[in-house]
């Protein structure tokens, strides 16, 4: 009676999910993984095609002559430049220029936009829409979403969709049909690989799933859970709300908040767009004065890590999944930042992490030390600051 929701794909996913490691996502149950080990699922993302149920994403349809006005006011990017059929990745901020949430914004037609978010956003949108001529409809439950990621993802879609997807450029979308079912396909994702997100009316969810699995058979398609996706997104340098930053709505103290600049989203802050938007004065100030923190990549130096483990007679022990934990980062004896997510990268064969670093330690090439636990003892392994992403295949944007 009182329980978490099932996504529109649950009928399929619950049979496939072998370890029954359901994870909670915004009030829904989703599969952590489908197989006992994450290996094959991870490699489906990087080598073939991974089918990921991302239906719990919050989704809103914003329609009306003033829709662009609202969105320009709320998000940091310049909506006037967003063309029909284009998708923006963007964050949005509070009055102090601190991140509330982030998501994708698609322009479906002249006056219709679709916004995705991680946290419920209906109230914030509505509060900012006072006096505007538009309609905000939450479609979180009525719209199912699948993420098809990996180098073979276009081949899978080409086999089952009416129109080939080759023409969709990076961060564009197209309307398509699959066995007579209208779907919308955007070339977006959360893995940093070639990939698409497919937006489907919830009632059509199962036939679309089945068609994709059938079409993908010859291309190595695999249902993939969010644990493998979590590894891929770190490689792609993509952060996650509540793991890598705290929504300013949820922060108890100022130190918990982050600005888009601090998260490396300076490129999404369009201070050249006309007029007021929420957080603008604070963001302009920060751009002028510079940020004191920055999200960077951290690569652990293997030799140093190996040495720490060798001291206790062990080979390096690294969990083969992403660790969402705060790990101190030091320069010398002084803590100058922290890691928010760390993962072993099976493709790069490196232990990598998303790190929040204080000025001036965020310069690429800086040598730092990151906490690792070696046989119950906290140690610091040498690590080097690198720019994000860690991994970007040439076919991601091609």
């Amino acid at each position, binding site marked *: *009676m*009182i329980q978490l929701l099932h996504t529109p794909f649950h009928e399929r996913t619950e049979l496939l999910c072998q370890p029954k490691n359901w994870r909670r996502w915004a*009030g829904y149950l989703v599969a952590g993984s489908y197989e006992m080990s994450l290996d094959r699922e991870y490699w489906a993302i990087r080598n073939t095609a991974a089918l990921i149920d991302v239906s719990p994403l919050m989704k809103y349809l914003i329609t009306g002559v003033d829709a662009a006005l609202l969105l320009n006011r709320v998000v940091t990017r310049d909506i006037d430049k967003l063309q029909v059929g284009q998708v923006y990745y963007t964050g949005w901020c509070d009055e102090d220029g601190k991140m509330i949430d982030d998501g994708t914004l698609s322009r479906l037609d002249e006056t219709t936009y679709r916004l995705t978010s991680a946290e*419920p956003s209906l*109230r914030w949108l509505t509060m900012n829409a006072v006096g505007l001529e538009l309609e905000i409809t939450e479609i979180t439950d009525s719209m199912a979403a699948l993420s098809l990621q990996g180098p073979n993802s276009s081949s899978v879609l080409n086999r089952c969709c009416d129109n080939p997807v080759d023409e969709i450029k990076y961060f564009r979308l197209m309307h398509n049909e699959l066995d007579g079912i209208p779907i919308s396909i955007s070339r977006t994702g959360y893995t940093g690989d070639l990939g698409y997100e497919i937006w489907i009316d919830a009632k059509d969810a199962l036939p679309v799933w089945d068609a994709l699995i059938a079409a993908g058979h010859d291309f190595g398609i695999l249902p993939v859970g969010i644990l493998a996706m979590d590894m891929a997104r770190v490689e792609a340098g993509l952060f996650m709300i509540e793991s890598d930053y705290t929504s300013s709505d949820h922060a*108890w103290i100022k130190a918990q908040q982050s600005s888009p600049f601090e998260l490396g989203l300076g490129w999404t802050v369009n201070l050249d767009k006309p007029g007021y938007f929420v957080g603008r004065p604070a963001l302009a100030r920060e751009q002028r004065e510079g940020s004191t923190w920055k999200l960077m990549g951290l690569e652990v130096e293997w030799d140093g890590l190996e040495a720490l483990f060798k001291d206790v007679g062990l080979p390096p022990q690294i969990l083969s999944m992403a660790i969402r934990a705060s790990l101190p980062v030091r320069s010398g004896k002084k803590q100058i930042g922290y890691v928010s997510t760390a993962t072993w990268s099976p493709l790069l064969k490196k232990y990598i992490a998303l790190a929040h670093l204080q000025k001036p330690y965020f310069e690429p090439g800086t040598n730092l030390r990151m906490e690792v636990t070696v046989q119950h003892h906290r140690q610091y392994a040498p690590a080097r600051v690198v720019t994000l992403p860690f991994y970007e295949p040439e076919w991601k944007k091609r």
Partner: protein
Amino acid sequence: MTVNHYDAIVIGGGHNGLVAAAYLARAGKKVVVLERREIVGGAAVTEEIIPGFKFTEFSYVVSLLRPEIIRELELPKHGLKILPLPSTFAPMDNGDYLGLWDDPDLTRRELYRHSPLDAEAYDAYSRAMGRAAKAIKPLISLIPPDPSSLHPRDLMGLLKLGQYAAGLSEKELYMIAKLVTQSAGDMLEEWFETDVLLGTKAASGVVGTLLGPRSAGTAYVLLHHYMGEIDGAFRAWGFAKGGTGGVSGAIANAALALGAEIRVGSSVAQVIVKKGRAAGVALDNGDELQSKVVFSAADPKRTFLQFVDPKYFPDEFIQSIKNFRTLGSSGKLNLALSELPDFTALPGEGPLHRGAISISPSLDYIERAYDEAKYGQFSRRPFIDMIIPSAIDPDMAPPGQHVASCFIQYAPYDLEGGWDDAKKEAFAETVISTLEIYAPNIRRTIVGKQVITPVDIERIAGITGGNIFHGEMLLNQIFFLRPVAGWADFRTPLRGYYLAASGAHPGGGVMGAAGKLSVQEALKDGLL
């Protein structure tokens, strides 16, 4: 006679009196608690009124018991178990319900059925209240300084208060300013539109006051409820094993272990004053006990107007105590049930039975209930906050049977024509017929009942006016104004006489804070 010589005497074995005694004993003092009744606990008692059925007679949940008291007195070692009371279920007039579950996602989804905007506002509201509570919480464990005094102690206090206020953000200050001036209704309507949510939240703003949700100042009481929320894992929100008597029992055990003495059946007639100083007490049975100081854990009226000859106090002080608002506004109906109430809106046994059940379908419902009380009637359709202790702690009732604790508002102390047995019966009938609307089986499951009016609270627990907080928690009666301006630091105009209960700062809610803080202050005075 040496046996009747103490460092300190504590009048009243309620939870605050016991806390005071425990801290005095912990400080190495020879202390005795004098309790009029045969059991300790005061308004925090559990009694087997009907064989096999244990009623948590008056107070029924724990929310604000100070974490430092739990820690310092090692209450878990002495039997304290605070069991979860995770949800609130509010049946509606249209047959639907609102469930505020213990999970934010489930609650958001549930609220979404009623209003998508409220679903999100609820989370934002909880966070805003949490922040305000975090901002205001340090005041609870602060001795309120007297803003008009030049005494170094008060100046230090004011300085601390100033530093504290300077540490708040502008937003927090505005929020607090609004919270202490607004009505609960107005404040909630800034956030929500769902009637049943407004009603349920508003009800907690009027608990223990003879005011309605539209009365100014009631928003502060809402904040009071969020204080416990920010103690993290240490928060003490829930149902104490064994009822609230379990809390008193654990504190009493701690006090005894620390060396305090507890005498039940010892009713105090008067505080003995020698050389302008409290020097002991005389009991109703004629016995006299001597001590260096005396703590009263009774309510302010009893403490100053009954136990001590008024000639020892300035007239103005006596007047202020007389004016202290202690109007009881709530009653209880404790029920012994053969089975669980079955709610039409959500039939069968379920999580709702393990949480609070709130009959508060709208703001207007609560305000209307108040309208009747304002003119001396009990509400014909009262706000009812029901919990089923036996669903949380099966030891409260015989196996398979249940006890229900219904807190009812409004039931004014000054009922027109006064309370008598017929009116008590009519009051109980009102409550049962109200519950019957939502849980039709309830009447036939009742195997016994206990009706408690404010007059009963006064008679049994000895609280003047039967006010559950020993005096309403209104802006004009809190912090440096509680109980009287200039006397908010637990001291009284009579040297060596201290106020150690809910009528003192920081007020009611089974906090134990007054018991602890009064001892802390008294130890500074050099009389002990």
